């Protein structure tokens, strides 16, 4: 027996689990990996299939234990169910989710490639720097101790030169473009001269992150060049080794050549290319599977048989990587069409 649950009373983690699931089952571990930003091919492929990659890395500090507890609670409440192939949203879960339009609207601002979790500490320190400067004060306890953040802000401040007033003006314009609540949430997190945040402001990590996303969504190199420079624009989702693999592959190297050159396993190079493909890297897909296989693969796909097993049944001589890259190619095409 389940009791009616008010979506706004759920924890953020529970809300995100509901946001990520559909009526199609997804393995719990895959959903966890998507939400916490685990960069394995199986995780991101699962996210791609499920259509929840938009939530990739939204809650990087979520522990596996907390995730499992929330899943158990949602199952007890009848909002999600465990099927053989994984977790899925129940009708009650879908209804509960759609009742909370405020959360859904806020969640829409999140983009995995904003790098908002890395940006916010830089933002806080940059604001503090400008604030203390406006009082002529050079002796203050920095808001952020991390040496990389300090180095970044120091560099950015050096780039500003005489433009500090312009940076403040830009920031005011950016905040003016936000709705009052979002702007107040962000302002409540600032540490600056004569101000140590609003003790009554929300400390909800997700709300703050989404407010940060809303701020980043306003930024552009032309309208807010100084703050855009601090941010650096959208962040690559691929790790540096993955980017290098893509670059070498696109320069004509084969998977085996890349593996040998960089002393990597072939499976590692395959992982790199799968993740890169899922995150939209430009790749020539025809290099991954035999041209002769394509018509049959396409026919099977167009008949609605999208799973690896179904495709392999039709062409049993194909290898995993070949089928998988075909799947990714098709899913990318479907997403673009949408």
């Amino acid at each position: 027996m389940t009791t009616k649950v008010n979506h706004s009373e759920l924890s953020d983690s529970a809300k995100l689990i509901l946001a990520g699931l559909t009526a199609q089952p997804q393995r719990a571990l895959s959903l966890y990996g998507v939400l916490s930003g685990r960069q394995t091919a199986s995780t991101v492929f699962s996210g791609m299939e499920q259509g929840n990659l938009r939530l990739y890395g939204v809650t990087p500090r979520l522990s596996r234990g907390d995730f499992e507890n929330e899943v158990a609670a949602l199952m007890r409440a009848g909002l999600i169910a465990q099927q053989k192939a994984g977790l899925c949203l129940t009708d009650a879960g879908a209804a509960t989710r759609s009742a909370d339009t405020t959360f859904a609207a806020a969640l829409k601002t999140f983009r995995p490639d904003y790098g908002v979790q890395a940006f916010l500490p830089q933002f806080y320190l940059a604001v503090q720097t400008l604030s203390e400067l406006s009082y002529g004060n050079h002796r203050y306890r920095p808001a952020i101790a991390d040496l990389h953040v300090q180095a970044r802000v120091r560099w950015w401040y050096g780039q500003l030169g005489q433009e500090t007033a312009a940076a403040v003006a830009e920031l005011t314009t950016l905040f003016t473009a936000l709705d009052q609540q979002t702007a107040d949430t962000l302002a409540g997190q600032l540490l600056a001269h004569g101000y140590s945040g609003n003790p009554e402001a929300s400390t909800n990590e997700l709300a703050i992150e989404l407010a940060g996303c809303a701020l980043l969504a306003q930024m552009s190199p032309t309208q807010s060049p100084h703050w855009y420079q601090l941010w650096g624009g959208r962040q690559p989702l691929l790790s540096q080794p993955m980017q290098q693999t893509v670059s070498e592959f696109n320069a004509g190297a084969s998977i085996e050549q890349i593996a040998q050159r960089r002393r990597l396993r072939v499976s590692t190079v395959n992982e790199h290319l799968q993740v890169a493909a899922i995150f939209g890297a430009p790749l020539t897909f025809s290099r991954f599977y035999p041209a002769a296989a394509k018509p049959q693969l396409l026919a099977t796909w167009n008949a609605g048989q999208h799973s690896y097993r179904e495709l392999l049944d039709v062409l049993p001589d194909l290898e995993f990587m070949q089928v998988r890259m075909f799947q990714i190619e098709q899913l990318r095409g479907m997403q673009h069409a949408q």
Partner: protein
Amino acid sequence: MRSEVEGVIEQLGYQNLRPGQEEIINAALDGKDVLGILPTGSGKTLCFQATGQLRAGVTVVVEPLLALMRDQQLRLQASGEKRVLAINSQLAPSELSVVLQNLSYYQFIFIAPEMLTRPDILRALQAVKVGLLVVDEAHCIYQWGPDFRPAYLRLGDVRQRLGAPVMALTATAPENVRSVIVRQLRLQNATIYAGSVDRPELFIGRESLLDQRAVNERVGALLAQVAGPAIIYCPTKKLTEQLAQQFSGLHGRRVAFYHAGLDGHTRTLRERQFTEGSLDTLFATSAFGMGVDKPDVRMVLYLGVPATLEEYMQAIGRAGRDGQPALTALLYTAKDAQHTAGMLANLPSPILVKALYRAPKAYAGSDDPQIQLVLAYQQAGYSASEVNQALDARIGSKQKAFSAVVNFLQADGCVRAELLHYFDSPAKTHDDFCCGIADAGVLAQIHSEQQADNQGFNTWQEVFKQIFNVSD
């Protein structure tokens, strides 16, 4: 006071020195080894800050915890000193390599003992002039102490190689520990300054209560009767949140909770809000306190039973740093004592040790004290099985430390004397503001200045006006 010392401390924002600071600084300026034992909050940092500014060469400061290192780094930056470096796991190998080539640029280098004993780092330090080697939390060298770090044992070798005088600092060192510090660090003709750890302005309260409900009621009563900023240390995160909610707004108090489950920035905000007065009551776990220099805390309550008296002293030491009367009280139940006794064996398990040895780099940035402890052993050259043996031995020293806590709980007579006896420190003569149960007479002696109304800025427009110095 030496004129050069006066000049430097003025630059650092101080008018004068507290007891012990001058002796320690002077000894170090004269190139002598020194062991300084100063109670929590009495300015150990200034001792090496001032000396480091005056002595030629780099000041290397050994810190056992990342959080301590971060705090010291921020303090120095706040004083205007920018040439500060923390060598820890935050540095990528390529960055470390660049930094090691440019060590002479820095005035202060903070480093964990495990990293200091690395051959590449030692070589780099030997190539620059090290003016002073500071060993903070020097009691970590005591093998039978609850805070023992094996890498501290190698610091004696390190000081020989660096050839710099040593300033060893700690808040807690009974006589037997002092002699171990001197021997292990090979201090020569050391000046030893052992200030009394007594804080006469603190009332040392101790109350055994029936159950948690009674503890909570007592907390409420004291919050109502004692004005001024207060810290209430709780044994669990859950209790901090529960009590913060329960007492929110009580008698106009501005209340919040603080524990390691909050993200780093929120913790920083709450520390500053408490220090600057927009919060005046914090329900916190032991995660709170480092880097919080608030002189006018009028009350510190400690709920539950501490595992060590060192931990307890550090907590209550945050009260009354302005020298004015302040209340401290340990509020506990029999169940709390059992719970703490049961936690003594809560050391890293063999499973955790195995996981850490398998992939030490994956855990390098962790703040978790258990993880840091195992990594410390690993970096000191212990095998996994040796670590498990050492951890078993630690249980013995933890039990010994806890038995001192039990003695303190059970002592008849002057509670203060019992507490300070553990630290081989003299106690003030028992008087009507000394120890025991805080009655009306005691509470009447605690005064707090009228707290200014919180100048709240609720909208971003108001905040921007303030922070960017925009006049009307």
